[in-house]
């Protein structure tokens, strides 16, 4: 029998460390050359993000330089640079924030800004207000709502797919409204209603399977009064 210096309990000598504290007090504090690669997950993530930023910035500089030298002015490289910046913004948002509500809001804002700049760079901004803005906003709002509902769920499975389907159903309706209004300034819902109905029925079936069939439970537990 061995006695742990930290917890004071007895444990079998065959065990290499204390099963309770895993020998936290007896950890070897000397550093060997092999420890250099032993970085934490957080450090690893930080280094990957830094590397990605360096690569994106380099790519931006290179494309701008090529355009300036060979194209005799900066034209198309502005679009690629905007795309690189957008990609950098997405990576940074995921790297810096953890709360899905903040991530969704920042992604929405950066996408809207990116699309607006694309419009400006291509001298065609008429599609931005009626199409790009409402579609982007509705997409990210529905995404945030789905994530929120998902976070409330204790058991995630088919109910998550059902939530995504319902979000897609709503998005298809918003998309048809925006496209109709942009093309003909009148709204006549057709394909989106059929899509939404099909997706809703599918999601109801999935919810039923999730709460009743898959877990073999009665709905009584969920709705008992």
């Amino acid at each position, binding site marked *: 029998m061995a006695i742990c210096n930290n917890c004071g309990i*007895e444990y079998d000598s065959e065990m290499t460390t204390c*099963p309770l504290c895993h020998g936290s007090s007896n950890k070897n504090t000397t550093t060997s050359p092999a420890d250099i690669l032993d970085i934490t997950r957080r450090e690893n993530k930080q280094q990957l993000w830094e590397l990605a930023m360096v690569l994106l910035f380099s790519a931006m500089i290179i494309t701008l330089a090529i355009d300036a030298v060979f194209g005799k002015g900066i034209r198309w490289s502005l679009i690629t640079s905007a795309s690189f910046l957008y990609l950098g913004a997405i990576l940074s948002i995921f790297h810096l924030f953890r709360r899905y509500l903040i991530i969704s809001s920042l992604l929405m804002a950066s996408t809207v800004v990116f699309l607006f700049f694309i419009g400006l760079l291509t001298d065609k901004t008429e599609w931005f207000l009626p199409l790009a803005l409402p579609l982007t906003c509705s997409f990210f709002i529905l995404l945030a709502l789905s994530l929120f509902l998902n976070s409330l769920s204790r058991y995630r499975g088919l109910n998550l797919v059902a939530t995504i389907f319902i979000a897609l159903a709503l998005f298809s309706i918003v998309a048809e409204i925006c496209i109709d209004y942009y093309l003909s300034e009148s709204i006549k819902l057709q394909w989106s209603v059929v899509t939404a109905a099909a997706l809703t029925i599918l999601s109801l079936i999935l919810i039923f399977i999730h709460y009743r069939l898959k877990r073999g439970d009665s709905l009584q*537990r969920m709705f008992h009064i």
Partner: protein
Amino acid sequence: MSRAKEKKEAGDSYTENSGQFGWMKLDNAAKIYPPVTRGELTNVFRITAVLNTPVNYSALDSAVTETAKLFPLFSVELCKGFFWYYLEYNGLPPRIHHDKGIPCRAFPTTRGEVMYRILVHDNTISAEFLHILTDGGGAMLYFKTLINNYHIIKNSTSESLFTEKSIDKAMVITEDLFRKYSRKRFPHPERLSKAWHIKTDKQKKAVFHTFTLTLLSDSLTEAAKSHKASVTEYLTAVYLFSIQKLRSRKKRGSKILRVQVPVDLRRKYNEKTTRNFSAFVLPELDLRLGEYDFNEIVFEMRYALGLMASEKRLLKTISRNVSSENNALIRVTPLALKNIVLRIAHNRLGIRQFSGIITNLGKIDISETGSDVLNQIYIIPPPPHSKIKVSCGVTSLGKNTIITFGSVTDDNSLQQEFVRFLTSEGIYVKLAEIRGDKNGDMQ
């Protein structure tokens, strides 16, 4: 070991029991705990055994697994329904942790976790329970079985540590006994006025101090007998006397001093269950009639506790609680809204009614072997509400009675008054901060 692996290992008993238990409604007493459990108000209490030798991990691990099989109603997790919370059987044993000296910490509400845990350090084994799962009586039953199983496995013996039989199958009943004994259209207890609350400076940060008083059981019983009272009546009187001392210093606020004393209904109704089955009585002192000397308080407690714990009076409380649960409007209110209502009701109607809590789990009878193996068993009551500030738990083992105070304030005035009175009665008191190094004797 991962929970998935543990679940796989517990497979046999899970399959056997999942059909029987599946899911359960919370018992009547447990219903209040989920909405009011947050922050420092963890509603977690602890029972600790101090052994004479260091704990053997392998034996404890086996004992925990074996004991979990005897208490299948503890292998449940809390789930949210649309109208009520419910318990779902998951077949898992509790986790064993290293006790880092912070008692009664909150339980994670993640999937695949049970609402009790085992903590070990040196020669102490503790079990912590969320009140949703069980009360002190049920927890003590589990704990004694665990310690006994540990002893049997470690020493390969059949000698029991306790004189009474610890568990039998009759205790695995899912029925809510509050509902069984409640009566329809039964008169409700009178609404109580606001009680005085201990006043201290506002805490800058959340704390939970615990310390124990070790008393010689014989001298305590003798002191209680000299006042013709039982130990519970006597200690409740000391508790109220100490609160009265603090009230007389402040001279402000309500003149009603009232303490909450849990009553184990298992004994009253001769029932065996591991779920919650206790009620509270609230003896009081009315300082509008003037201050009381100790003899008067003991006299009051002797009769008040006896009267209030009578079957018919307890039925009034049980029936009131169950009828609230049966109220059609409450039942159809969605859980999110119900939580808000229950939280307000708990603060407005529950907490305001009493000034302190004292719970006596009674005498634990041990065999001769038990006295060689066990040094102490004590209870740490759940961290009290910030208005109540100090709660008190009592257990007796062998020659010693251990009184534990759990306090959410740095102010120790109540505990000081309590000790001062006991020593003035000639009772030897040994004071120890739990797992701390500030030990000292007071005579």
